[in-house]
């Protein structure tokens, strides 16, 4: 009984965590996080059949500075315009129109992986701490 009580309680998958947004979108700093295997061209490629690492993308980067490594979604859109999966230019345009406050200094990307335990126990906690360091007011996530 004692050991049962000592076990940490985990969030049920039926529970939805929810943080209210405070402030104004026009002042919000936004961080992009993707699972589409996007990276800076100069950075190390993702292993397309499975990779639990993540990449950091500069907030100064243009979509033209980026590429992606993937073998699981249709590339017709992203081959022509990387904003289809990682809309960094479009977010910057919204900032230019003062519809958001701006972009954080760093953004984040993961590739494809089925190593769910590694992701849950190592990759995601590390990545989420990095996101937290950026102090975004909101995070926009994209898949493929």
């Amino acid at each position, binding site marked *: 009984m004692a050991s049962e009580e000592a076990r940490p309680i985990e969030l049920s998958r039926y529970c939805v965590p929810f943080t209210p947004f405070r402030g104004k979108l026009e002042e919000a700093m936004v961080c992009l996080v993707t699972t589409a295997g996007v990276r800076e061209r100069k950075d190390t490629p993702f292993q397309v059949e499975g990779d639990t690492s993540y990449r950091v993308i500069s907030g100064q980067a243009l979509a033209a500075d980026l590429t992606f490594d993937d073998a699981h979604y*249709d590339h017709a859109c992203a081959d022509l315009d990387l904003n289809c999966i990682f809309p960094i230019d479009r977010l910057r345009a919204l900032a230019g129109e003062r519809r958001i406050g701006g972009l954080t200094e760093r953004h984040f990307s993961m590739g494809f992986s089925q190593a769910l335990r590694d992701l849950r126990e190592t990759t995601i906690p590390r990545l989420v701490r990095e996101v937290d360091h950026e102090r975004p007011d909101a995070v926009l996530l994209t898949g493929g």
Partner: protein
Amino acid sequence: MQRTIELIGIPTVVITVEPEETAQARPPRALCPKGFPAGHSLGRPNDPDLQQRIIADALGLVAGEPRPGEVVTRSY
């Protein structure tokens, strides 16, 4: 990942083209542009107006009424 970011106190929204899969994961906020295939989250290439509209709608969910766990589907 979205749920973990939300857990540490940062509001999130996901743009998804796989609404059933996303709904099962119980997202804090999710926008599904209807009928877009995987790899086309923001719709069409080199269509900044459409892409900005989708982002603005997604961020609108962040600032809007809470609908936790729901995937909001819109046609574009």
